[in-house]
């Protein structure tokens, strides 16, 4: 496996001395979709801006398909498309002009068929001669996407592409991301919607206070999420798990008066009935039973809270 985007110990200290990124190292494989999660001010946009050449790099190295983004900026940047977080468009231009301009700026020769395909895919074709000022917010965001796709990037950064976008458009966007992935485009997106990461990402990265806390396969995370916990509260206080219950892989709760059992909701048999029978057979008295499901959100909240402590 070869990484199309390789980030090594990337750091950013802004002019005021604020350290927004504290050494991020990350490899992204060709054709994968990485979702970056993190609270406001975590450094997501800073990371993207540095890779795209908008913000200067304080320290570290980034290569795109083997091209260093500073030494070989032309080769590196021509592979990258960026949809920024903030909507930024020249107000009095038409949609078509704006999108054509982007293609030219990236050194690609004129290709009306490609531009038409992109605009149609984003449902903007009938707005092609409309001035930007006459578009709705969601349409403007789609124009930004069209601009980024106009020059056929191999790596696409989407900085909160679905912020302020209606449900239907969000679904469309997810579909578009899937199509791009099918074409072999690598996508890095940031989002505050965890279900979005669940829906489209291959891997999930969590960033907080300028540090990458975790990067993991979404399926691995999902497997953790697929796990449920049941806490059996007892009238008795135990020092250890009774030998008769050793087959269940139990954990003793804090205080010793509960047993924690983890099971897979996707498994054919949860083993709950067996456990409860075994508990009463062991002569223990049930006081209460509670279940818990860990979600990506829990994992995220735990991680971010852990970073604060």
């Amino acid at each position, binding site marked *: 496996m070869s990484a199309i985007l390789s980030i090594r110990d990337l750091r950013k200290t*802004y002019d005021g001395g604020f350290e927004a990124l504290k050494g991020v190292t990350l490899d992204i494989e060709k054709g994968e979709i990485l979702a970056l999660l993190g609270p406001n001010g975590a450094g997501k946009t800073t990371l993207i801006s540095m890779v*795209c*050449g*908008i913000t200067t790099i304080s320290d570290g190295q980034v290569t795109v398909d083997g091209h260093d983004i500073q030494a070989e900026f032309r080769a590196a940047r021509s592979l990258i498309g*960026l949809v*920024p977080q903030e909507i*930024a468009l020249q107000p009095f231009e038409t949609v078509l002009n704006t999108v054509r*301009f982007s293609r030219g*700026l990236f050194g690609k020769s004129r290709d009306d068929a490609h531009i038409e395909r992109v605009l149609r895919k984003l449902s903007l074709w009938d707005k092609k001669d409309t001035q930007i000022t006459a578009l709705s917010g969601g349409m403007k965001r789609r124009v930004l996407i069209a601009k980024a796709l106009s020059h056929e990037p191999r790596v696409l950064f989407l900085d909160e592409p679905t912020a302020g976008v209606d449900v239907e458009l969000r679904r469309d966007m997810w579909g578009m991301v899937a199509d791009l992935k099918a074409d072999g485009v690598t996508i890095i997106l940031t989002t505050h919607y965890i279900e979005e990461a669940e829906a489209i990402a291959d891997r999930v990265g969590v960033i907080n206070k300028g540090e990458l806390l975790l990067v993991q396969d979404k399926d691995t995370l999902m497997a953790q999420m697929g796990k449920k916990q049941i806490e059996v509260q007892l009238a008795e206080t135990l020092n250890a798990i009774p030998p008769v219950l050793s087959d269940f892989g139990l954990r003793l709760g804090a205080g010793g008066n509960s047993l924690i059992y983890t099971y897979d909701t996707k498994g054919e048999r949860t083993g709950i009935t067996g456990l409860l029978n075994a508990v009463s057979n062991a002569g223990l008295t049930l006081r209460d039973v509670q279940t818990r499901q860990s979600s990506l959100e829990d994992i995220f909240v735990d991680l971010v809270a852990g970073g604060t402590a």
Partner: protein
Amino acid sequence: MNLTAVWAIYKFEMQRFFRTLLQSFLSPVLSTSLYFVVFGAAIGSRIQEVEGVSYGAFIVPGLVMLSVITQAISNASFGIYFPKFTGTIYELLSAPVNFLEIVMGYVGAAATKALFIGIVILLTATFFIDLQVAHPVAMVVFLLLTCLSFALLGFIIGIWAGNFEQLQLVPLLIVTPLIFLGGSFYSISMLPPVWQTVTLFNPVVYLISGFRWSFFGLADVPIGWSLLAIAGFTALCIAVIWWIFKTGWRIRS
């Protein structure tokens, strides 16, 4: 060299100009006509000739310079300030282009617009006076270099400006006085000796003098100095812009 990108920027900028072509055309025609009416008719009736040239003809080079310089600065400064203001500069910064290509696109378009205005003024002037050009090649070179160098200056102003007021500030406080005091409407020899010396510190004097020489063969300062001044000014602007992009001053955080 990413010429496709240069062309894309140039075309994009020129399209804005062509959308407002009538406006772009009318205002120089109108203002030139007004200058002829006010300066040519009112003052010209008292000053018939300056060094053997009719006053109406004498002011033409200054008039052209005045408009060309103002237009080159305002077009170029606005051209690059606007993307900063709207945030679309992100695209320029993330594109596979270097500073030279960005400058070529924006400054090239601004200089073209200024050149267009200059030509319109010259043509308008021929309706009022009989205009002769003694050194056509020198005239074109001066005109082109002026368009180019002041578009470069405008580009720097556009990068420097943090708001629309600052965008107007330099042209208003520095450039316009320098042009008016640079001998646009009079010959330096008409000034008292002290002011003749002071005036020599005004760079615009060299431009207007050289440009006027290309029309009438008469100059306030030697033509070589004029050429040197404009070439030096162009080089200075390019050096400043090179530094801006190297350091990312006011564009990259």
